[in-house]
């Protein structure tokens, strides 16, 4: 909502409330969009929002989880911090999943929670929750504001911490009496964080070591994670790869950091990665990890991970280096600065022609495959078709499950920051609200939200926001009438005992969309898909497409749990 009344900012009379001070601080921080939901403990803040004449949008979700996933989507595509406001108690606890998700995927989010008044904190007052206690393990940092005078400083610190170094969520808990208090003084927002000095510049000695290792490598491979995206280092990565003809693979979250159609690109690595990417990691003699954290879904069984390789790891977070995989060449730095430093060195061109030929053969001989159904819609084909019809240019958000992996496999990206997915936490219910934030952050881009029939039902109430804001999001439900990924694991590892994974009952998604005033279409024949999707993508406004796909499909290839990256199953028909 936009705002009406006015108040005098420069006045020294007691005319500002703590909440007004907060709004000024947000405006100072450059905030243009706030995702939130009101309640008792944030009434002063919502009153200040109502009265403020600053130009920012407040987006009212229909559940606080919707607010925070939207803020994550916004942050992921714009690179700016996402801002969330929620009330005390249940408002704050409804954010927990999203805060944890942002922590795992290193997204800059600043969350303001209301708290009960200072004098009743600790008495189990109405709607009191120990937000500091609950959010300590899932935030980069958190604050409870004790005095109004410290609020501007806290807000400034919170944005700084959230968006620098390795990004992450920061919670600011504000007791109601602090936001309601009248204030006259203008408080300085200077701060000092002596214990927080992220190191962006690489140690030159480590760069020399890395350059030397590269010049000697016979089988080099670059693993590019989301650190490339946060550091805006895609150009540098491309230059390094092309100059030394280095094969590149991405993590799930790193997709878009290297052009998907590039001849040096081998695809995504990990549990559902390509044969070429995983065998590349298995056989390489130098693995240069840039901004990835060697997550277990990437590495598989660590015993078999990159067994012949010297490991170099560039990361802004020193604690990630050596955490899971022993590292010979640690480079604590911003990915862009590290790559720039590496590009400045003269490096002997590595002797790796045979390796390149081998990997190219892997790529050609073992591409992603699926058996296309002749009657029903194959979900992989559906995702390929979405890619084709949007020329690979859309911002794609996904939920979690089989459709997510198919989207990662078949929607390849040429450009960065167009891929929004929940990697570390694997949060069902993420994809659709994330699309709302992405569309608000990038109003002129086509946003396609690929969701499962299960996960969509976890946050479907946010359809109201899409309608209210006239967001032209294209929602594609990959509807297999099942918790597909659970069903797949039960098929593969539990002798097809489909315990609680097949839906007997799903809503009529078209009517659901229509009840929110959103255009709905459904398709269950392959021959009609292209026509329906074309209509959806050219429709001027939001559309929900319910795509009925084959239920019994599995995501392949796969590294079974406990297996090594060289032990993929389902590599070819």
């Amino acid at each position, binding site marked *: 909502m936009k705002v009406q009344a006015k108040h005098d900012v420069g006045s020294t009379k007691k005319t500002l409330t703590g909440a007004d001070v907060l709004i000024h601080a947000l405006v100072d921080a450059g905030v243009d969009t706030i995702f939130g939901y009101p309640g008792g403990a944030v009434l002063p803040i919502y009153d200040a929002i109502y009265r403020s004449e600053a130009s920012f949008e407040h987006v009212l979700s229909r559940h606080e989880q919707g607010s925070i996933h939207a803020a994550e989507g916004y942050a992921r595509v714009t690179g700016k911090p996402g801002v969330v406001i929620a009330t005390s108690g249940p408002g704050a606890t409804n954010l927990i999943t999203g805060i944890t998700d942002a922590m795992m995927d290193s997204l800059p989010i600043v969350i303001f929670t209301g708290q009960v008044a200072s004098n009743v904190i600790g008495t189990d007052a109405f709607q009191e929750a120990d937000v*500091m206690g609950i959010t300590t*393990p899932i935030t980069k940092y958190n604050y409870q504001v004790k005095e109004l005078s410290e609020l501007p400083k806290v807000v400034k610190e919170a944005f700084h911490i959230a968006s620098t170094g390795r990004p992450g969520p920061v919670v600011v808990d504000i007791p109601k009496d602090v936001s309601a208090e009248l204030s006259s003084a203008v408080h300085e927002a200077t701060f000092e964080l*002596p*214990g927080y000095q992220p190191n962006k510049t690489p140690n030159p000695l480590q760069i020399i070591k890395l350059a030397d290792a590269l010049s000697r490598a016979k089988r080099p491979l670059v693993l590019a994670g989301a650190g490339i995206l946060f550091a805006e280092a895609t150009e540098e990565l491309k230059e390094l790869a092309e100059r030394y003809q280095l094969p590149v693979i991405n993590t799930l979250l790193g997709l878009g950091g290297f052009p998907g159609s590039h001849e040096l690109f081998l695809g995504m690595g990990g549990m559902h990665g390509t044969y070429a990417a995983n065998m590349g990691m298995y056989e390489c003699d130098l693995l240069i990890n840039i901004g990835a954290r060697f997550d277990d879904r990437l590495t598989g069984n660590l015993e078999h991970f990159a067994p012949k390789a010297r490991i170099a790891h560039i990361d802004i977070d*020193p*604690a990630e280096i*050596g955490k899971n995989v022993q590292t010979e060449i640690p480079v604590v730095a911003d990915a862009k600065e590290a790559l720039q430093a590496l590009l400045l060195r003269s490096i002997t061109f590595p002797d790796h022609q045979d390796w390149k030929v081998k990997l190219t053969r892997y790529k050609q001989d073992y591409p992603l495959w699926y058996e296309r159904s002749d009657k029903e819609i194959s979900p992989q084909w559906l995702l390929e078709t979405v890619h084709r019809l949007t020329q690979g240019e859309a911002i794609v958000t996904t939920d979690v499950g089989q459709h997510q992996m198919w989207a990662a496999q078949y929607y390849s990206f040429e450009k960065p920051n167009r891929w929004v997915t929940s990697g570390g936490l694997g949060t069902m219910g993420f994809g659709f609200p994330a699309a709302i934030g992405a569309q608000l952050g990038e109003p002129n881009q086509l946003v396609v939200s690929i969701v499962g029939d299960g996960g969509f039902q976890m946050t479907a109430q946010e359809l109201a926001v899409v309608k209210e804001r006239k967001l032209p999001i294209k929602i594609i439900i990959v509807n297999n009438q099942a918790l597909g990924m659970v069903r797949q694991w039960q098929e593969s590892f539990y002798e097809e005992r489909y315990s609680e994974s097949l839906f007997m009952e799903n809503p009529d998604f078209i009517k659901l969309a229509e009840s929110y005033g959103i255009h709905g279409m459904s398709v269950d024949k392959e021959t009609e898909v292209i026509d329906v999707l074309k209509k959806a993508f050219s429709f001027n406004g939001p559309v929900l497409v319910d795509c009925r796909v084959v239920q019994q499909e599995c995501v392949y290839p796969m590294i079974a749990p406990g297996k090594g990256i060289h032990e993929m199953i389902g590599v070819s028909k």
Partner: protein
Amino acid sequence: MRRIIIATVQNRGGVLNRITGMLHKRQFNIESISVGSSETEGISKMTFVVDVKDHQKLEQLTKQLNKQIDVLKVSDITERAIVARELALIKVGGSGQLRAEIQGIITPFRASVIDVSKDSLTIQVTGRPDKVEALIALLRPYGIKELTKTGVTAFLRGQQPSQVAEINSFTI
């Protein structure tokens, strides 16, 4: 292996919770923590005695501590010349004849009796953890009714010899 780690931290609300929570989440085995103010206002010192499996785990521990925004400095002082002390209060049963006997045991430890009742006495001992442990072992036969320890607090000696004879990880 046992290590003594000191963290200098900013004295902000929740800092102890944040650090112990992180140690718990990351499955570090903490034998003791002692926390108190330092020479600088607003800055506290935490002394941890930890049992870690190997050097990689130790490196993770110091990195994770350093990563905390309130942590200013982390040092592993295990292999340096240090003074490490802890304090224990030990209540043992004893009256009449036994008291004299107990007194005889504690004197070489420079421990003192700080409270006496009809049938018990409370002993205070300060020193290196191995010394404190030794006294506790000697008192055990007399029946320890209550025991509390502060945990180790430590810092570097003013003078660091070029070679540290004593390997602290064994003695603390």
